[in-house]
């Protein structure tokens, strides 16, 4: 069979593919996937975080033959998975505080080193609040010391577990319970917030990447690549939240896809501070198509609406497209 043939079954975007050899298929397609987060968890219908965490941890489990320990910050992921005495986790898993998952990860890695267990690897994970805000000091320290931990941030763009408050990863103009859609500049203020992947890159650690739940193959490849390295590594995964975003539960993956295809969420990979690869946009679309599906942006539309804010968000997407070269050369920006 011709290996260069590229179309749906082999150049596939789907999870699996009956025509590929098993080792070429995604971890999620496999009957042997570890299902790191088991059924019965209490995440909302269509939770992107539950999905993103299973994608990432299952891939990490496969990469290290199941020899994995996780530290987990307080947040939805911890709360919905582990109401004592029940847990969904099917790997050694330690609940840290809201702000110190990176430090706990560092500690586990240090203990394993002392014990001479080179075979066991460590991940630390948390939400965007636990990562970009309260946990930022611990995380930056982990990066700076180049501790042997993969940190996974599941970015649902607000403090969802406590009822949707703004974080420094909340997008501009989005409604949260602390950025209400009132006044002349409704929603989360423009000119604030931080881009943690870029800050992580500034630490010049071995590996930094972003991914979404819409592109499983890409996400799994990145986890696998990260687990093949040692030292501090960071993966930032966009995980839509139907409840906090005011979106249909069926649209979780679609929203992640649109975030990438609009340029709003650049999907890239960097080593030692240099971008090494970006996911190109396949079918470019205006941000409006993405925003309209989410009630947290509802005040931008309708009467009178805020076309200037939509334009400002479009400009942010366009800037990403230019800055990270998200379009193929043939397409004009």
């Amino acid at each position: 069979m011709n290996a260069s043939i590229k179309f749906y079954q082999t150049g596939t975007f789907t999870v699996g593919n009956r025509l590929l050899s098993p080792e070429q298929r995604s971890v999620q397609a496999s009957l042997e996937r570890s299902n790191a987060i088991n059924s019965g968890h209490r995440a909302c219908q269509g939770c992107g975080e539950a999905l993103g965490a299973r994608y990432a941890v299952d891939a990490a489990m496969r990469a290290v033959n199941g020899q994995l320990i996780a530290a987990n910050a307080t947040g939805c992921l911890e709360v919905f998975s582990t109401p004592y005495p029940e847990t969904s986790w099917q790997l050694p898993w330690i609940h840290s505080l809201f702000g110190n998952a990176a430090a706990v990860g560092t500690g586990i890695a240090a203990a394993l080193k002392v014990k001479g267990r080179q075979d066991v690897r460590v991940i630390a994970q948390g939400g965007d609040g636990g990562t970009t805000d309260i946990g930022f000091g611990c995380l930056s320290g982990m990066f700076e010391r180049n501790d042997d931990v993969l940190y996974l941030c599941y970015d649902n763009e607000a403090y969802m577990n406590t009822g949707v408050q703004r974080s420094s990863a909340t997008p501009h103009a989005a409604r949260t319970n602390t950025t209400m859609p009132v006044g002349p500049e409704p929603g989360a203020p423009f000119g604030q917030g931080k881009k943690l992947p870029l800050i992580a890159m500034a630490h010049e650690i071995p590996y930094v990447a972003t991914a979404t739940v819409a592109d499983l193959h890409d996400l799994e490849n990145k986890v696998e690549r990260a687990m093949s390295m040692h030292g501090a590594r960071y993966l930032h995964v966009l995980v839509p939240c139907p409840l906090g975003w005011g979106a249909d539960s069926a649209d979780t993956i679609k929203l992640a896809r649109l975030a990438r295809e609009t340029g709003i969420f650049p999907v890239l990979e960097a080593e030692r501070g240099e971008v090494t690869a970006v996911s190109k946009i396949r079918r470019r679309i205006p941000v409006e198509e993405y925003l309209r599906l989410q009630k947290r942006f509802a005040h931008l539309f309708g009467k009178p609406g805020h076309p200037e804010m939509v334009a400002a968000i479009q400009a942010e997407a366009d800037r990403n497209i230019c800055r990270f070269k998200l379009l193929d050369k043939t397409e004009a920006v």
Partner: protein
Amino acid sequence: MDKPFAITLDPGSSLANKTGSWRTMRPVYVDRLPPCNAQCPAGEDIQGWLYHAESGDYETAWRQLVRDNPFPAIMGRVCYHTCESVCNRGKLDEPVGINSVERFLGDEAITRGWRFEPPAADSGKRVLVVGAGPSGMSAAYHLRRLGHRVTVYEAGPLMGGMMRFGIPQYRLPRDVLDAEMQRIVDLGAEVRLNSKVKRIEEMMAEFDAAFLAVGAHIGKRAFIPAKDGSRILDAVSVLRSMEGEEKPMLGRRVVVYGGGNTAIDVARTARRLGATEAIIVYRRTREKMPAHDFEVEEALQEGVMVKWLSTIKQQGADGDAGALTIEKMELDEKGFPQPTGEFETLEADSLVLALGQDVDLSLLDGVPGLELKDGVVQVDPATMMAGRAGLFAGGDMVPAERNVTVAVGHGKKAARHIDAWLRGTRYAPPPKHELASFERLNTWYYSDAPKTMRPQLDLARRTGSFDEVQGGLTEDNALFEARRCLSCGNCFECDNCYGVCPDNAVIKLGPGQRFQFNYDYCKGCGICVAECPCGAIEMVAEEV
């Protein structure tokens, strides 16, 4: 207590928490009807056989195909493939080359000598089939498979009907036709050649049922005033004589009158017989021509000329037996051609009329209860049974589009109803699934892949010989083409639902077994439905 410090309870699994109780809607797997299947006049399960071809299992694909149509190699050459015009992939880039893959499978079967599975147990019933064209032979095949004894009476010296005595060899090589006809004989259908049925009613006593498929072979005439010695022929006779020893004498300048596919075939045949000029005279414009445009295009490439908006008024004007008087036409507002009173003269060694065909209904004389209208036999379109009990008919002799695929479809349908009729029951076709419309697909998951073109014979060789014009696909290309199919409305086991469920509520049953929902944990979010590429899952309201 041997628990660690400060621990009083065992860790329990969240599996105890049946989150399925949250659900108000539930996903269910469905099969939807792909548009290609819905369109196919022979009722082929196109998506179904492409599925097997995709994995390179051509024999299974062929077997799936011949469940409905025993002539893949013929279809892959002469079928007008309306399936491709409705193919959902056409809305993405270009339709799947269904017809070329079908031909590939048919040719593979001939090369590798695949045979039909033996028929079901003998029913003891005898069925008469009249006419060994596509319709009759399709019926014979399906009746044989159902275990009936079949005798085919054929007036002509060979099997194939219009596929042999109409369709020229450069479109359908005779070894291909022979191979697919013979396979039905090998299945145990008895074919009596040179056996014309004169009175069907007289034969009905010998058989339990009969299927008539005598086609339409009488060339229609037009009244054209002509001088003695002028050569006026009809297209069907010309094409039929191509199959005999004596090739027709058409001369160097041949004029063909008519605008259908038959006109095109005659003109192209004339070119191959050595005519320096083959000119089609047609009343209307190219857009209005009933012939398929791809055939017009091929004919033009081969040097066939067409006089659009023209009629023939007279032959032999001014004492010149070869002179044709042509009148220019123009289209009125309604698109009908109207005479202009402008004339010209065209020199021709022969004039071939290709104005359509009538059915020879003489064998039906004396059959009670029959209804004949517009020169064809009326049948119940649901069963193909004519006014007389036990007498069924199909193909060109009944009211329908006249082409091979429709004829084959009639044969199949009639066979099923004859079978039921012989058993004293009624055949109830399985209920049709809902259409797998383009809107149901999530096309994000299919990568771009343009259609593979079939090679064509060089022009120089085309006009000089009767070699087949259209080539076949290589295996690589056929595989590529099959894999372009989107599998509209039917699970192709891409694992998307299994992967995208945040609650692991999809159970993967393994190759060929598809998937199952675990409703204990499915919360009804609907992501699997949204992300199913081919639209094979549906949300339904949960009963409360």
